[in-house]
């Protein structure tokens, strides 16, 4: 495994110093494109500023010549004072691991036009649409540049710094009206409509508002015939947003020929609750409970990702016991999430509810432990910058904590996995429905920026815990689970493998927890009202149960709020693969394919 530091200093180190893959690539890139690539010299920033019109060319060089073939995150940033909009790209080297090569393209705020990366990295598709929706970037060459989280016809681009929402009060929290004096009012009372709405000044309804949805249907393909030589009619069907098998408020617009899928387009944004915009108004600390509500099945891991990112920005260290507690919580969360995912996948395959109920019994035990430690079953809000909120509780539901954990880790959880294996894994119906369906090749998985179990089930052994270790993962002994067929069945199996590996990790964590009993769980002093010690940016990523979860945070010097707060949500980007995987399969298979991707809408829409 290669060097794991995120150090991106662009100078070529002296001979004898081992370069990380990212440093090598950065240096080579500057050699190859001396005129269009330059160092980002702003204080606290790293990476390369690329001449915007040449971004696709540089990305192609990185992919083809330098091995950085995985485009992880694309995000817009608004620098209103400089009159510029910026797109930030994080690219990784799948085979060698290590940190990212960060590319930045700056464009004028009034004419934000730059080439699309979709021809080079198909995985950029939804992220560029999101950047268009939120900032108004026009990506030239994007095949389907429509709004993705808001609706067609929405007024303005909400993440631009000069865009104000209906209940706008101030740029930053805490608001003067509420703190320190605390005179609270209801925002509805100050709005003429009594609701959270705002219309463009002077706007009068015309009746055209009803036609906002036609664009979705225009982009669908009707050309392919499922049965060669037979001319058939195609029908367009909407699955969702209210549909029991879409795992929330997700919608798929499907063209079908008989029962065969000709084309499929996901439509999202039905749970878009403005996580990033609210996050840019909050103080750093206020965002922690919001991260719980991203992937609400694995709130502990979301907490960890955000804590790690802010710790990078603030240069905070974490005491040893807090790190072990973090790993304990995160791995239990992974099991929790996979139990849920398997229950629902089997549900979608036709094993209605029964396996689900078996898995949830064990999940409830983990939730009991979370409730005893954090105070809440699901929304844990447990991690802090520089530690965790509380030490482990003395007892869980009347049992001493360590005894409870031992029973859970050595007995209950292995037993339920065993039971599931015996009852479900060899089941003929499961095999018939899952083997060979929804195949994703490793090349496609990488190109479409798939992450987590989806990527690893396609035969790509890439796990952030190994590729760029955080916390104490480099000291722990576990295997990166990998399967090679890339179908639904492998995505089912890999989740069981991962739970077994998580149990292995947990068994190693328990002795450390015993050894460090009583040690502090919080670094230096409590971090309540944090102010950034430096201006700059930080990107942190963790291996969430659903894939790579990244946070991109920028701050001003002495700023108490993030200036830009972006979440690279694995579920959102994994959905890029849904359309290509579903084509040619039957309607019933789409439900199972979606179940095997394992999305959670809180994270897809944010």
């Amino acid at each position, binding site marked *: 495994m290669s060097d794991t530091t995120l150090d991106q200093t662009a100078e070529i180190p002296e001979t004898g110093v081992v370069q990380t893959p990212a440093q090598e690539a950065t240096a080579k890139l500057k050699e190859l494109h001396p005129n269009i690539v330059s160092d980002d010299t702003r204080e606290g920033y790293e990476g390369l500023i690329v001449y915007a019109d040449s971004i696709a060319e540089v990305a192609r060089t990185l992919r083809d010549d330098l091995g950085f073939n995985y485009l992880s995150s694309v995000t817009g940033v608004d620098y209103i004072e400089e009159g510029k909009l910026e797109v930030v790209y994080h690219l990784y080297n799948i085979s060698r691991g290590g940190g990212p090569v960060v590319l930045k393209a700056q464009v004028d705020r009034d004419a934000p036009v730059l080439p699309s990366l979709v021809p080079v990295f198909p995985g950029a598709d939804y992220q560029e649409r999101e950047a268009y929706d939120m900032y108004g970037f026009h990506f030239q060459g994007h095949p389907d540049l429509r709004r993705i*989280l*808001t*609706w067609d*016809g*929405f*007024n303005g681009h*909400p993440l631009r710094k000069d865009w104000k*929402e*209906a*209940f*706008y*009060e101030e740029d930053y929290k805490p608001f003067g009206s509420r703190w320190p004096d605390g005179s609270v009012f209801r*925002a*509805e009372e100050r709005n*003429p*409509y009594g*609701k*959270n*709405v*705002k*219309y*463009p*000044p*002077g*706007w*009068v*309804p015309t009746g055209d*508002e*009803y036609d*906002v949805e036609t664009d979705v249907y225009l982009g669908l393909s009707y050309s392919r015939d499922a049965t060669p030589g037979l001319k058939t009619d195609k029908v367009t069907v909407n699955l969702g*947003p*209210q*549909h*029991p098998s879409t795992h*929330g*408020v997700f919608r798929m617009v499907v063209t079908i020929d008989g029962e065969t899928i000709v084309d499929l387009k996901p439509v999202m*944004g*039905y*749970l*878009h*609750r*403005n996580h990033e*915009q*609210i996050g840019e*108004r909050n103080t750093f600390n206020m965002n922690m*409970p*919001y991260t719980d*509500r991203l992937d*609400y099945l694995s709130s502990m891991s979301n907490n960890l990702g955000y804590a790690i990112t802010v710790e990078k920005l603030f240069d905070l260290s974490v005491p040893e016991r807090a790190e072990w507690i973090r790993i304990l919580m995160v791995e239990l969360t992974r099991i929790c999430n996979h139990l849920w995912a398997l229950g629902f996948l089997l549900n979608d395959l036709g094993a209605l509810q029964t396996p*689900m*109920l078996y898995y*949830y*019994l064990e999940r*409830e035990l983990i939730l009991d432990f979370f409730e005893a430690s954090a105070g809440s*079953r*699901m*929304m844990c809000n447990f991690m802090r910058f520089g530690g965790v909120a509380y030490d482990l509780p003395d007892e869980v539901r009347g049992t001493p904590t360590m005894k409870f954990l031992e029973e859970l880790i050595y007995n209950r959880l292995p037993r339920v996995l065993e039971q599931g294996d015996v009852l479900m894994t060899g089941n003929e119906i499961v095999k018939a429905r899952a083997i060979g369906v929804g195949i994703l090749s490793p090349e496609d998985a990488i190109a479409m920026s798939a992450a987590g179990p989806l990527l690893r089930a396609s035969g790509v052994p890439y796990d952030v815990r190994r590729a760029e270790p955080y916390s104490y993962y480099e000291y722990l002994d576990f295997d990166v689970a990998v399967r090679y067929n890339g179908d639904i069945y492998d995505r089912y199996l890999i989740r069981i493998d991962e739970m077994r590996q998580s149990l292995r990790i947990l068994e190693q964590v328990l002795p450390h927890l015993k050894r460090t009993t009583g040690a502090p769980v919080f670094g230096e002093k409590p971090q309540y009202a944090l102010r950034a010690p430096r201006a700059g940016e930080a990107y942190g990523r963790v291996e969430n149960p659903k894939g790579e979860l990244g946070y991109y945070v920028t701050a001003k010097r002495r700023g108490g709020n993030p200036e830009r707060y972006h979440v690279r949500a694995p579920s959102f980007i994994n959905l890029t693969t849904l359309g290509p995987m579903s084509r040619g399969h039957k309607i019933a298979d789409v439900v199972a394919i979606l179940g095997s991707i394992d999305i959670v*809408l*809180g994270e897809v*829409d944010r």
Partner: protein
Amino acid sequence: MTVASTEAANGDIPVPDEVANNVFITNIAKLLDPVYNWSRRNSIWPVTFGLACCAIEMICTASSRYDLARFGMEVFRATPRQADLMIISGTVTKKMVPTIVRLYNQMPEPRYVLSMGACASGGGPFKEGYNVVDGIDKFLPVDVYVPGCPPTPQALINGLIALQEKIDQQSIATAPWYNKKDETAGLYPVPVLGPDLVDLRQLDIIRQEAAKYQAEAVAADTEAEPAAVAG
């Protein structure tokens, strides 16, 4: 079976003496209400309809540990036409609310709405967001509010018991859905997505605000013009 005195039950209706022992006259609503309410309260079928985080707790409530079947509510129906109760389990966004109102309109009466969690009741932590509806009660009549973020399964069950108590107090004689003269009564207008969410009941206010703005703009123009001439 002993029969109550007919005269005590209803003095207005004459009953011949020879059948007096076999006839029992009472108010139909009084007789049927308990039976009707008892059967309804114990078979409330919710719509399978999860919005956000609260839906996970809703599913946990229906699972083995909390077992909603004890209350006759385990039959989650995927179609609103077979359901009695809509559990608004999560953040209601502007993009989603037209669908929710449409679903509600499709439910047969009697129908109930339970607002689960902080977001559905008032916007919750996401209240200020540009795509968030600050409470489903701006669009639908809510019967029970359950606080929490998310409410625990126990809290949800408590809310459902509160709904049962509410049903117990209803009478078919006074229930609004049986004495409807207007066929569109009880249907709520489906909001429309324009530049922002448009509540069709508010069109007049929107036009007034637009007119007010235009009047201001004209006033500003007339003020600006003399200045321009002077400059």
